């Protein structure tokens, strides 16, 4: 692979997050470089999802600093993080169940749609043109993800694998700079996993999107990620290239237990 990994875009320093007395994350630092695929791995309850939630503003860490493009970021709500170009998918799919696939992906364009409420109400001029222009963009994403045949189906009726794909489509519709993927392949069969891997690598390759992903399937993680960070009980126990991490004694201990 001949891709250019750029500068650090996201730098997390000494992040700590507590829920009451429970320490979800303790003093975690790592960075994400432009165009790379960065994986976060770790056993259940290691704090991986919490980490993503910190990055896109759902949770506010008590300590630590987040630098985004070199600028220190204040505590922000998720929609502001979205406006800065951070989008994500969810572990247990969080699609809008009452809406069609098309509408779900169209919601991803919300930030880019500017026409005001009155124009929308009369469906005229700029509002109509905008709607059609964004529809065009969304159709490109639909083509990319190969879900043309279900574009008007309510998402609630779709099988799991396709829902995951729509979830990815919605995140892509934002044209994010950083894409956070929370277990994009959980519960999939081998073919679905292969498809999903292909989409992720294509996104990374074609659009140059930086990807941070949580995944349990080690094979997948080792194959597609550029660098890996390992969490255990809310602490960082490893960080580096896939091969380095795989051979780190501490990581092996966390995964297989002390006896090995």
């Amino acid at each position, binding site marked *: 692979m001949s891709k250019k990994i750029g500068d650090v875009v996201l730098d997390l320093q000494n992040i700590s997050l507590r829920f009451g007395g429970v320490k979800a994350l303790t003093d975690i630092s790592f960075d994400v470089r432009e165009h790379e695929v960065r994986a976060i791995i770790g056993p259940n309850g290691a704090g991986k*999802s919490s980490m993503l939630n910190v990055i896109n503003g*759902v949770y506010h860490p008590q300590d630590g600093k987040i630098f985004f493009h070199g600028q220190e970021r204040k505590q922000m709500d998720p929609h502001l993080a979205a406006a800065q170009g951070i989008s994500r998918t969810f572990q247990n799919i*969080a699609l809008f169940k009452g809406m069609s696939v098309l509408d779900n992906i169209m919601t991803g364009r919300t930030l880019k749609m500017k026409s005001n409420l009155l124009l929308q109400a009369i469906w005229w001029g700029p509002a109509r043109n905008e709607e059609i222009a964004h529809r065009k963009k969304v159709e490109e994403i639909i083509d990319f993800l190969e879900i043309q045949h279900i574009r008007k189906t309510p998402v609630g009726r779709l099988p799991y694998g396709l829902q995951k794909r729509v979830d990815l489509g919605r995140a892509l519709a934002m044209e994010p700079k950083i894409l956070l993927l929370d277990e994009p392949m959980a519960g999939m069969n081998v073919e679905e996993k292969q498809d999903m891997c292909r989409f992720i690598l294509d996104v990374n390759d074609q659009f140059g999107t930086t990807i941070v992903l949580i995944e349990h399937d080690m094979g997948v993680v080792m194959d597609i990620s550029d660098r890996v960070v390992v969490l255990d009980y809310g602490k960082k126990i490893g960080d580096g290239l896939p091969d380095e991490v795989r051979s780190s004694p501490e990581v092996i201990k966390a995964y297989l237990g002390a006896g090995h």
Partner: protein
Amino acid sequence: MAFFLETLIGGLMAGMLYSLVALGFVLIYKASGVFNFAQGAMVLFAALAMARFSEWFNAALGGDSLLVANILAFIAAGGVMFVVAWVIERLALRNLVNQEGATLLMATLGITYVLEGVGQTIFGSEIYNIDVGMPKDPVMMFENVFEGGILINKEDFIAALVAACLVAALSIFFQKTSTGRALRAVADDHQAALSIGIPLNRIWVIVWCVAGVVALVAGIIWGSKLGVQFSLATVALRALPVVILGGLTSVPGAIIGGLIIGVGEKLSEVFLGPYVGGGIEIWFAYMLALVFLLFRPQGLFGEKIIDRV
């Protein structure tokens, strides 16, 4: 000073009655996650049943033993509330398991209408009296503390006593009996409770029955004070802010919330009302609840809700 205290005590008494209705809300919410809008209609239904049964038994017994007639009527009305609980569980709730809170709320609104219609069809829609022999005459108290003393209704006093006993009994029921434990388990997690063999449907019937009995007691007290009529059903609307204030899952919250609202209403009506044209007690409680919603959504004693992503 004496006037202030009189208002205060009047408010406490009214608050006690709100608490009783609010208690019904809390019981059902705790055990099934249903916000039972129909609690007011259940109060009306129970009071109507009580009033008419007492009338009929009294007539059947020749009118010379009010006490016996009342006891029989209480049992009969209790039985009716049991049937109501069973029917509600069977026809409505069982089919709405795992629905969202808002859906369940709307369903209980529907149940409210049905109960109001059925109650009035069976028992009639005039104004009835419940006479359980509560003394109506007021007594003077604290005459040696204040000049003129304070006027208190004996009836209010007994009502407060009954309410306190009911709360104590319910607390024991919830904390000490195995059924109470099962109820709390169901409240925590339906599925987990089901998987360890707690019969969900039976538990719901039980809790609705208990709520029915609470409604009956509230209905008797309100009814004997104000007469049984359609407006009793609107007491649910008066008790709503109480549960918001106290927290939806807290029995003590219902009691204390009721007292606060009762006192707040009376004091605001007496001391604030004249400046704005009176009649403010209806929305005052709601505004109080609204303030709470903005600053402490879980209420005074409720559990904090944490969203997980």
